[in-house]
């Protein structure tokens, strides 16, 4: 701006030149930003750039996450013997229960494989899981996303499903080398194909922007669906594995004036409480983590994705 009159007259010239090149640089960087926005928003072509930058941001995320991890550790280290004993007892009881269920499950699985063989249909691939932790870093409050502390180096890839010990939480939308971002099923832009366990009714559950509701907008008024029905992933669309619990129907409102009933469900996964989560991977890790290198790192073997939590 030539309107500025600095005190020393010797200053004027360099200032003037600078302001010219300043505008030029603004236009340049502005055009570059807009190009980035368009490429990223419409074509999703910038995954490499995002991965590279996510490595640059990693130290910040670790710095923010560390105090919480230390607090977690200190809590575990300093907890009383009584409490540990009690927790141990409870876990033993739970493990016993789960084992008895697992026994039944194994026989069912064998039977299922046998029946599938008889039918000649494709066998389901055994799922592999990566145990990950949700990093305590805040993202945009209006989007339901979380950051995981595992990336492509540990075998997490874009598009894979994220579950906790209660149900499906979401899917990985971007996997960087060290961290990845996942979209939760309650994000307004997220939909997941589901089916009703009671009768196999298929539908789509959409996020509502609220961590405690899913809506099922495409259920006809006369469909057989009731409050309390369990919804599991149907596996249609190929993104989510089949048969994991998603939600429980909490409300069904039928209005004869509308074509579709108003059905809402409560997600079963503890979306705002879980810390340790599992990513169901399709490919093995690019660089398998050697056992014992980290206390929670590692790809567990095939079979029971619900085994750890």
């Amino acid at each position, binding site marked *: *701006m030539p309107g*500025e009159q*600095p005190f020393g007259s010797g200053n004027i010239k360099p200032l003037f030149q600078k*302001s010219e090149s*300043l*505008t030029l*640089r*603004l236009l340049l*960087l*502005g055009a*570059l*930003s*807009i*190009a*980035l*926005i368009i*490429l*990223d*928003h419409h074509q999703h072509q*910038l995954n490499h*750039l*995002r991965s590279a*930058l*996510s490595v*640059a*941001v990693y*130290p*910040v*995320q670790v*710095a*923010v996450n560390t105090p*919480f991890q230390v607090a977690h550790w200190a809590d575990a280290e300093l907890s009383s013997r009584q409490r540990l004993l009690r927790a141990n007892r409870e876990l033993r009881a739970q493990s016993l229960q789960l084992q008895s269920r697992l026994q039944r499950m194994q026989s069912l699985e064998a039977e299922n494989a046998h029946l599938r063989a008889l039918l000649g249909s494709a066998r389901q691939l055994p799922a592999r899981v990566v145990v990950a932790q949700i990093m*305590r*870093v*805040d*993202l*945009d*409050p*209006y*989007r339901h*996303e979380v*950051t995981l502390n595992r990336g492509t180096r540990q075998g997490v890839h874009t598009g894979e499903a994220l579950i906790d010990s209660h149900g499906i939480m979401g899917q990985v939308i971007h996997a960087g080398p060290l961290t990845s*971002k996942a979209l939760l099923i309650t994000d*307004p832009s997220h939909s997941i194909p589901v089916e009703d366990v009671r009768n196999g009714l298929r539908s789509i559950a959409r996020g509502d*922007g609220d961590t405690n509701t899913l809506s099922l907008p495409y259920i006809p008024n006369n469909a057989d669906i009731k409050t309390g029905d369990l919804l599991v992933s149907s596996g249609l669309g190929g993104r989510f594995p089949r048969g994991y619990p998603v939600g429980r129907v909490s409300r069904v409102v039928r209005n004869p004036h509308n074509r579709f009933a108003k059905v809402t469900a409560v997600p079963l996964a503890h979306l705002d409480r879980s810390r340790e989560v599992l990513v169901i991977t399709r490919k093995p890790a690019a660089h398998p983590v050697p056992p014992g290198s980290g206390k929670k790192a590692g790809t567990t073997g095939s079979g029971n994705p619900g085994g750890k939590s």
Partner: protein
Amino acid sequence: MAGPRPGLAVIWVTFFVALCLTLLPLPGWAEPLRPEWVLLALIYWSMALPHRVGLGTAWILGLLVDVAKGAVLGQHALCMTFTVYIVLRTYLRVRNFPVWQQSAVIAVLLTVYESLIFMLDGFLGHALPAWHWPAIITGAMVWPVVFSLLRGLRRRYQVA
């Protein structure tokens, strides 16, 4: 950034801390009140050392904020670059204002920034209620603290 220049580390440490504060988990009610720490640090440094911290720095930091917050790449970069451009156009006057008056200018700058973010959000079709106007007020309120803290750092480590 070619060659070792005095205090480069100091500047980037403050940016690192600002990024940490941006990602620090807050309880839900405090979330809209979180000031734009990175932008405040950027405004301070570009006002104090306009020959060293300028549009390029703003753009790179904006990209880092984009990735850290999971926004569309380029959104914060564009808005921060533009805000810093206004600072670079006016710093000769604003630098000599008393701090409370600077706070008022900061409020205007933050309003420009938040409106730009809001407009881009609307343009990209994101969920609506993202206009964080409380962040403008808290940002202007913490400015005197940010200012004296960063000025103290700058004088102590003689960043010039």
